C-alpha cells in the first residue's frame, strides 16, 4: 500500500516537472521569437511612416561589385513621408545611422531606437535624379550616350548648374545614361556630408563642381505593437511587399473551414460515440467498426487529403471550395472525436445508467438526461482538442488543392480559400527576408490560438472534475 502510494507520488512529481519544464521552454521560445520577429517592426514603420520599400541592386560601374539599395515602393498620401517630399522611386540610404541595404534594415533601426510609442528618426534619402539635379535627358551628342541637364533644380542652380550642361561623371562614376546618373548619386549619398564631385561639360569645356545637397529628414515612426498585430490580423493580403502582408484571408478561411467541419463532424462524432458505447450490440460488425475507427484516428492527414480530393472535390463536384475543405477535415477528425467521446462516455459510472433504467427510463432517456450531461465536459474537451488539431493541419487541405495565396476573404461555401498553415508555408518559402518574418508572425498567431483552445479544454476538464467528482 505504502509502496504504491510512493510510486504515485514519484509519477506525479516526474509528470509535473516534465510539464512545467516544457511549458517554460515553450514560453521562452515564444518570447525569443517575438523579440526577433521583424514584421511587427516593419509594419509599425509602415503604419507610422507611410512608406513601403522594395529592394533593388545594381552593378557599381568600373568595379565587379554589386550594390543593393532600397527604393520607396509606395508612399501613403498624407503620411509623414509624403510631407517630407519622399516619393515613389526615391532611394532610402540610411535610417538613424543604419545603412539601408535591404528593407529589413530600416525597421531594425526603428527597433533599436529608444523611446516611447512614437520615435522620430533621421532619415537620409536620395530623391530621384530628376528632383535632385533637375530634369535629366539622355542624348547622344558627340557619338556617345550623354546625359543632359534640361531643367536644373533649385539646389542644382544654387550649386551653379545650368540648362544644357552635360553630366560626365558623378562621384567619379562615368555617366552614360540617366540610370547611371541616378545610381551614381545613390553611391555618393552613402558618404553623407562629403560633397559630391560632379564633372560637367559646358560649351565644350570640362568643369568640376562640388555639390552638397541636404538629403536629411526626420521621419516619425509609431511604435504600437498591439496595433501592428491587429493590423496584421485584419488586413487583406498583398503579394509583393511583406510590410503589406495580412493574415485576414487565411484566418477567415481557417475559421470558415473549421466551422463547416464542426457542423458536420460534431453531431456525427457524438452520435457515433453514443451508438458504439450505449447501443451497439457486441457482435463482429461492431468490433470491425471499432477497429476501423481506431485505425482511422491514426491516418496521416495527407491520405485524408487525397480522399477529400477524390470524393468531395472531384466525385461530388465541390471543387477546391470551403465546403470540400470542411468535409475533408471532418474525415480527419471524426475518428479522433469518436474515440475521445467514447472515452468520456465510458467514464460515466454504470451505476448512473442503472439508476435511471431502474425507475423505468428508456435507453435514450438515460443517455439524454444522465449519461450525456455527465460526459459533456469530457466530450467537449476531446472535441476542442481534435478541433485544434484540424486548425493546425495543412497537409490534408494542401492535397485537396486549397490555394496557398489568397488576397480576399471567402464569401460563401463555394469560394476557394486558404488556411493559416498553408499561408505560413507560402510565406516561408519566399526568398525575401520580410516574408520569413511575416511567416513567423503568423505562426505565433496560430500557436497562440491553439494554446487558447487547449487551455479552454483544460478549464472544462477541471470544471468537470470539481462539479461531479469533488
Amino acid at each position, binding site marked *: 500500500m505504502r509502496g504504491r502510494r510512493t510510486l504515485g507520488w514519484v509519477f506525479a512529481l516526474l509528470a509535473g516537472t516534465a510539464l512545467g519544464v516544457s511549458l517554460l521552454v515553450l514560453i521562452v521560445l515564444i518570447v525569443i521569437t517575438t523579440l526577433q520577429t521583424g514584421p511587427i517592426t516593419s509594419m509599425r514603420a509602415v503604419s507610422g511612416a507611410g512608406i513601403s520599400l522594395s529592394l533593388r541592386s545594381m552593378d557599381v560601374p568600373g568595379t565587379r561589385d554589386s550594390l543593393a539599395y532600397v527604393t520607396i515602393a509606395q508612399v501613403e498620401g498624407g503620411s509623414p513621408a509624403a510631407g517630407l517630399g519622399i516619393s515613389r522611386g526615391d532611394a532610402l540610404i540610411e535610417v538613424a545611422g543604419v545603412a539601408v541595404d535591404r528593407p529589413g534594415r530600416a525597421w531594425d533601426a526603428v527597433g533599436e531606437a529608444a523611446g516611447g510609442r512614437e520615435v522620430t528618426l533621421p532619415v537620409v534619402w536620395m530623391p530621384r535624379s530628376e528632383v535632385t539635379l533637375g530634369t535629366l535627358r539622355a542624348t547622344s551628342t558627340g557619338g556617345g550616350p550623354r546625359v543632359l541637364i534640361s531643367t536644373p533644380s533649385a539646389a542644382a542652380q544654387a550649386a551653379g548648374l545650368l540648362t544644357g550642361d552635360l553630366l560626365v561623371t558623378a562621384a567619379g562614376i562615368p555617366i552614360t545614361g540617366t540610370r547611371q546618373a541616378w545610381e551614381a548619386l545613390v553611391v555618393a549619398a552613402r558618404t553623407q556630408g562629403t560633397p559630391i564631385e560632379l564633372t560637367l561639360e559646358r560649351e565644350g569645356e570640362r568643369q568640376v563642381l562640388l555639390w552638397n545637397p541636404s538629403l536629411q529628414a526626420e521621419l516619425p515612426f509609431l511604435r504600437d505593437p498591439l496595433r501592428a498585430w491587429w493590423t496584421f490580423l485584419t488586413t487583406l493580403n498583398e503579394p509583393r511587399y511583406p510590410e503589406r502582408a495580412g493574415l485576414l484571408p487565411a484566418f477567415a478561411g481557417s475559421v470558415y473551414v473549421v466551422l463547416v467541419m464542426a457542423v458536420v463532424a460534431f453531431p456525427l462524432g457524438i452520435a457515433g460515440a453514443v451508438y458504439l458505447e450505449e447501443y451497439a450490440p457486441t457482435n463482429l460488425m461492431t468490433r470491425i467498426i471499432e477497429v476501423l475507427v481506431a485505425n482511422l484516428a491514426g491516418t496521416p492527414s495527407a491520405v485524408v487529403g487525397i480522399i477529400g480530393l477524390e470524393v468531395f472535390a472531384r466525385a461530388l463536384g465541390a471543387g477546391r471550395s470551403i465546403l470540400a475543405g470542411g468535409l475533408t477535415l471532418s474525415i480527419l477528425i471524426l475518428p479522433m472525436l469518436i474515440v475521445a467521446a467514447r472515452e468520456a462516455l465510458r467514464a460515466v459510472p454504470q451505476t448512473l445508467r442503472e*439508476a*435511471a433504467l*431502474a*425507475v423505468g427510463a428508456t435507453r435514450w432517456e438515460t443517455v439524454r*438526461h*444522465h449519461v450525456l450531461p455527465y460526459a459533456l465536459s469530457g466530450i467537449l474537451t476531446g472535441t476542442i482538442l481534435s478541433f485544434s488539431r484540424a486548425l493546425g493541419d495543412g497537409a490534408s487541405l494542401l492535397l485537396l488543392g486549397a490555394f496557398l495565396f489568397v488576397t480576399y476573404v471567402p464569401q460563401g461555401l463555394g469560394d476557394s480559400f486558404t488556411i493559416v498553415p498553408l499561408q505560413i508555408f507560402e510565406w516561408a518559402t519566399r526568398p525575401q527576408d520580410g516574408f520569413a518574418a511575416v511567416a513567423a508572425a503568423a505562426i505565433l498567431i496560430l500557436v497562440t490560438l491553439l494554446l487558447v483552445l487547449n487551455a479552454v479544454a483544460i478549464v472544462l476538464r477541471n470544471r468537470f472534475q470539481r462539479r*461531479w467528482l469533488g
Partner: protein
Amino acid sequence: MREHEALPVLSTRAFSLWYGVHQALIEVNLDIAERQVTAIIGPSGCGKSTLIRAFNRLNDLIPGVRTSGEIVFRGERIYGRGVDPVNVRRYIGMVFQKPNPFPKSVFENVAFGLRINGFRGNLAERVKLALDKAALWDEVKDDLHRKTGYDLSGGQQQRLCIARALAVNPEVLLMDEPCSALDPTATAKIEDLIRELASSVTVAIVTHNMQQAARVSDFTAFMLLGELVEFGPTREIFTRPTDSRTEAYITGRFG
C-alpha cells in the same frame, strides 16, 4: 400466521441464467409474497445479486446473458416475447448497493421517474410524498433545489435513492445490499424504513448480513452456488433449518 396468508406477486419457475458459458443461476423456484419482506442470503458469488437483478431485467445490460425458465409478475412472464424491460422496471423498482443519486438537485432526483413516465399532476406533492415515505423529507425540505444528490450524506443518499424508486409507485422494491456501504446508524434507519415500507410495497432484499435478514424480513431464501437451497419464513430458517448447508451457513461455519 401472517406469513402464510401472503400471495406471491413475483415468482420464478425453474429460472436459470448464464453469463456466457458460466451458469450463475440453476433452476431457481421462488415465490415473493405480496407486501412482505423477502431476504435473499448466501455467501459471495452465490447468485443472489444476479437473481434480484433478474427480477427487473437489469441483467439485460450485460452482454452475453442468457436465461431459461420463467419469472412471473402478476401472471405475466417478464422474460416473455414482446415484453419491454422498460415497462417491467416501471413496476419493479430497485435500490443499489452503493448509493447512486443523479448529479442533480434532490427534487429532480425524485421527480425524474415521474417526468419520464408522463406524470401529469402535482409534481411537488408527489416528490414530497416519496421523500416522506423514505423518511428523508424533514432533512432535505429546505434544500430541495439547492442541494444535489451528491451533497447528502451516505445514508441520506441511500434514502434519496429509495424515495426515487418509490416516487413512481412501484409494486415491488428490489434492494441489492442497500446497507453495505453505510455505517450502523444509517443502516438502522434504512432497516426501520424497510419494515415500514412493507405495509405498502413488496420488498426483496439481498443481504450478506444474516442479522439484518433476521431483523427485517418475513421470508428468507438461502442460496449457494447458484442454487436456491432453502426458502421459508425467516423465523423457521434461522431456528429450524431443514438443510444442513443452511444450518452450516447461518451458524457461521462458512460464508
